[in-house]
């Protein structure tokens, strides 16, 4: 597992959950930003560079699915892992159809979460690599045309 610290945004209205999971993830070397609502999540994404969002589905106010939709609309490259206390496979599948990377059922196994984070992080990194290469390619061609 590549231990590049991921920039993680942890979104859940349960403050104690966010606090404890943040501590554990930080201990593992990740950089965690907490948020307690869908609204707060989008505000943070506006300001900060984030690799992976861990997103609770059932939240008061703007709920998880709505937030997911917005994240994918505004920041399509950010990977989202859904957390559901709900246990219904349908919601998870719907989320994945909307672009979520994966899902976990609460209470989740820390090991499982770490593996999914690593996988999401990997995809994000590879995507970024491809974009960089494509940009370099485009730049090279443009400079070529100029001369």
């Amino acid at each position, binding site marked *: 597992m590549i231990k590049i610290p991921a920039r993680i945004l942890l979104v859940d209205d349960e403050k*104690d959950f966010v606090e*404890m999971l943040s501590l554990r993830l930080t201990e593992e070397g990740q950089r965690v930003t907490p948020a307690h609502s869908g609204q707060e999540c989008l505000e943070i994404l506006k300001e900060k560079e984030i690799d992976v969002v861990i997103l609770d589905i059932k939240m008061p106010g703007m709920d998880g699915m709505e937030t997911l939709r917005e994240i994918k609309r505004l920041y399509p490259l950010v990977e989202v892992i859904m957390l559901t*206390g709900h246990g219904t*496979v349908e919601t998870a599948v719907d989320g994945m159809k909307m672009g979520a990377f994966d899902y976990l059922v*609460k*209470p*989740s196994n820390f090991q499982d979460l770490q593996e999914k984070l690593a996988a999401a992080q990997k995809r994000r990194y590879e995507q970024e690599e491809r974009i960089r290469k494509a940009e370099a390619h485009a730049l090279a061609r443009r400079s070529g045309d100029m001369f």
Partner: protein
Amino acid sequence: MAENNIRLLLVDDEDGFKQPLAKRLGRRGLEALMASSGQEALSVLAEQPVDVVVLDVKMPGMDGLETLAKIRERHPGVEVILLTGHASTADGVEGIKAGAFDYLTKPIEFEHLLSKIGQAQDKRLRAREKREETAFREKIRQQMIATERLASLGTLAAGVAHEINNPLAIISESVGWLRSLLNKEELKDMPHRDGFIMALEKIETSKERAKRITHQLLGFARKTDSLIQETDLAVLLNEVSQLVAREAAAREVRVETDVPPESNRIFTDPNQLRQVVLNLVTNALQATPPGGLVRLLVRQEQNGLRLEVVDTGEGIPKENLQRIFEPFFSTKPPGKGTGLGLSVSLGIVEKLGGRIEVKSELGRGTTFCVHLPRHYTPAGRNSA
């Protein structure tokens, strides 16, 4: 006029009256029993089914009205037509008040009597239909109440489970954090470190147990689509039998499968069905003392197949038989089992278009029958 299989009883002390009448009725397709007194009439009614009684009011011994009273008391479904003398229409009216269908004055017109007999029978049949309909409605009403109760319990259960998963997640992460702290270098020689670790392990185990319960509860209310495919029930039973082999051996209970050679394939969800059979077999094993036997059978039925789990265990008391499918109903000690298995199983089987029946005898054993249709219809509207 009602059908010609009305069972008649003619009661009159004069043979000269009732024999020819019986003959005439016979020619019209109506067989009539005969009695010569009120007493005899009651004996006949006690032995044989009768629909309509034609009863003379004036008889020696027990008179017509007294006989009528006794008939209404002992055989309320039987209609009585009184035959009164020319000068005693008062008796007729008295009789109607006492429950007779109607009365005719002698000498009677045959066609008139026939017509009255027909009407009496119609009344009988209508009354019986009404009783059956009321009983049926009541049964349906009870079923609907039970179903609604299960459904709302299910929704309640799912809501509660979901709510509980959140604090469980917090407990889980907190335990993980404490463990992580305890593993730090600085706490290597902490006093009572072992005590902390042991307690954390117990919290972790209990959290896992609570998680299993909530997930089962959520499964109980789940609306997932089943994965329908052609399933060989013989194979499925054998799989379950293998799954429980170790526990069965430990309990010294034999598990046998009894599968006839003909095709045992139906379209259903094998995973969910396996869960149901496993639940039934596990219950059977737990109820059966060492030396006992649990049998798994498949049998053909008209519209599908029947799975049976038969045990030689302690049986289920009659008062519990109604309740065993209720969520949380359990006769096991606390901590052992959640009481959810059968309610989840019932939900699965019904969603698959089938039904579960249970028969039990205390001290002899219990049989669970799972009836399944051969073909699954999405709406689940099968008669299995």
